[in-house]
């Protein structure tokens, strides 16, 4: 996934360092460093290839290309791209993991009512 158009996403560039709690009602692209907590609920978080997130994350969808250290709670899906390095537990309905991605932690696939969870390579 290429970096999104900044008009569609809130964008944290690679030279930006944030410590604290981030919450919002729009999609977020992080290519810098965030330490703390990220809460987006009905929106998506993308950690870019230069992104370094040390935070517990709650979002609808989480796409990771860089580093993430913390728990991930995604109500819809999680995608680990080939350069992803994730340390922490992941809870989601669907997960996709590209070859080369690194995950250290528990994966809990929550089943949507009437459907079964899924994971794909």
């Amino acid at each position: 996934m290429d970096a999104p158009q900044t008009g569609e996403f809130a964008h944290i560039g690679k030279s930006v360092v944030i410590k604290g709690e981030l919450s919002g009602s729009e999609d977020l692209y992080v290519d810098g460093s965030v330490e703390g907590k990220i809460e987006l609920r009905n929106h998506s978080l993308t950690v870019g290839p230069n992104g370094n997130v040390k935070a517990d994350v709650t979002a609808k969808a989480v796409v990771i290309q860089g580093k993430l250290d913390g728990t991930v709670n995604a109500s819809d899906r999680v995608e680990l791209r080939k350069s992803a390095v994730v340390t922490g537990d992941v809870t989601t309905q669907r997960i996709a993991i590209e070859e080369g991605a690194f995950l250290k932690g528990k994966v809990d696939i929550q089943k949507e009512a009437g459907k079964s969870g899924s994971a794909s390579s």
Partner: protein
Amino acid sequence: MKFFRSSSKPTAAAAVPQKRTRRSSGMAEISRLLNSNSGDGLCVLDLGSTSANNIRFFTDKGHKNYSEDLLRSSLDPALRIQDSEGNWVVDSKTFISENLVYENAQFDVVLCWNLPDYMEESLVKPTIDRLWSVMKPGGLLLAFFHTRDAGPDSMCYRYHVTGTDVLEMQEVKFALPGRPASDKQSPRLQRVFNNRHIENLFRDFASIKFFLARDAIREVLVVR
């Protein structure tokens, strides 16, 4: 000590990781255990390269899946230290303090795949000892070992569980430290364990069962 196979110019064929399948008697026994559980679900620790297939296979049956790519973690350049004689060695104490950090007796099933064959020698025994601690009594551990027929360039595989006793094998390649991400190499087979070595390695466990196969791989199913 060489951790990676000899470098060669990449070819079109080498650019695409090869996939093979194998029937696994050890996996069949683990599947029997997974299928017979009707309670809260078992705790499974997968020590191979992260595989969505495996996550799906275990979580679809209601079990809990933990992933930890221990071979990749063991290749972290930060673990290389110089001993008192100036030789570069792997810091096994730091490795064990940073990896396999779980509660005692947490796991019912541990999938080691071919980890002991490719891991630095000083890490193998401490890793198996730690696995003994984090496994429940009666839990199962599956590991694959090359036989003497295997050469040093035997491929290291990522194992995807695709059926009750069927594994898809995909060659593992890692980017070398300080080199471009596109410059990836397969880990090198570090040693060949004979049966006596394997029995010694798992001597604290309750029992051990060997399955011989035709592809120079010996499957070992160990009961904690």
